[in-house]
């Protein structure tokens, strides 16, 4: 089956296999920021945005994004042109192995798109379904609060 959808601002017309997950489709399309952790919806490593909202791509049928707008970390920034959220994660020391980072950043992006002045408690609630085995979460919360401050100061895109 072929579907149209928008990936990071570009139209795609691709073949999908029956029962294929969005995670599998995105990785086939070269979006290697999308990580497979548990593959059962539990860990959040595979989080992407569909029409601006965070979903778990490992338990989303690829067929469901037909006609929708999908954003992966590649759509926010690139190594030579980091998004402020990516810079904030580096500055706060919120990245260790990095496996959870794309999902964390996209989850944070959704939060900040609705609320650019979240409390630490609101940040923790937003990332409560994203597991990180390395950092202990504190620096991730710091990074998101720092990015929120930058966003309020107009340093954003």
């Amino acid at each position: 089956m072929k579907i149209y959808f928008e990936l990071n601002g570009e139209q795609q017309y691709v073949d999908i296999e029956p029962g294929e997950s969005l995670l599998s489709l995105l990785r086939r399309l070269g979006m290697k920021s999308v990580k497979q952790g548990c593959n059962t919806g539990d860990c959040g490593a595979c989080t992407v945005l569909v029409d601006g909202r965070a979903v778990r791509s490992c338990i989303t049928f690829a067929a469901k994004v037909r006609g929708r707008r999908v954003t992966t970390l590649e759509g926010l920034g690139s190594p030579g042109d980091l998004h402020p959220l990516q810079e904030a994660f580096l500055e706060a020391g919120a990245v260790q192995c990095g496996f959870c980072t794309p999902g964390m950043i996209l989850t944070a992006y959704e939060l900040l798109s609705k609320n650019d002045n979240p409390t630490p408690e609101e940040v923790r609630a937003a990332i409560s379904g994203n597991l990180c085995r390395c950092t202990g979460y504190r620096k991730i919360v710091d990074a998101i609060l720092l990015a929120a401050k930058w966003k309020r100061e107009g340093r954003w895109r």
Partner: protein
Amino acid sequence: MRKTGPVEIVKPRDIAEAVRLVKEGGRPLAGGTDLFVRIRKGIENPPFLVYLGELPELQGIRLREEGAEVGAAVTHAELLRSPLSARVPILRLAISALGAPAIREMGTLAGNLANASPAGDGLIPLYLLEATVRLAGPDGEREIPVEEFVLGPGKTALRPGEIIRSLWIPFPEGKPLSYFRKVGRRRALVIAIASLGALIWLEGDVIGKARLALGSVAPTVLRPRQVEEALVGLPLEPEALRPAAELLSRATQPISDLRASADYRRKVAGNLLLDMAISLSHRD
């Protein structure tokens, strides 16, 4: 990692087509947060899936004077954003404890109900509010109480070809106090070891009426009606509720599993009632 198995997804145009496809053996698919995982784990292998998430007739929340009709495609996150969750606090309390933000964005209340898990967090408010399920099937529509819809773990009263069209949630009379707590090993993403939801109507200083619903302590969500009656006339204080808490422990029929033993679940159920008294009496 590539596939879940070759499952075709069909997108019906309207309810009539959905019903026909389900009658032919297709499995209803909403958010997929239960079904996708079950298919991937090989627990289920339906011949094909009927995607209901975009059916126009299943969308939206219609607020009426006496209650609200929640379309079967409405997600937990939509519910939490709607005026309904402000109007009925027990819905907000229970649903905001379900899964994690992205799971609530994808999963639906109707899917939670059709899944018929005794641990389903969304079922607790449906039992407490005495919601009814509006079904569409080959023989037309019918409406049944939630308690008659859920028959056992994973078992429902759905007949061949039937789908949930919407849930009717009546508003409670007056202004009951609302309580919900689930006990698990951590805050997000837990399947409850035991959970308790309650609506308590005070008359002066004592309980005038009570509804209780327990999760994960019986084959289905449980309304312990003898305990509800035993609460009437008692002050909302832990000491006064101790005998009722014991009665509640005895009313449960828990199982032992990986997450907790039956004895522990029984004890937690009773303690949740005391916790309810403490947290509701400190509500100001």
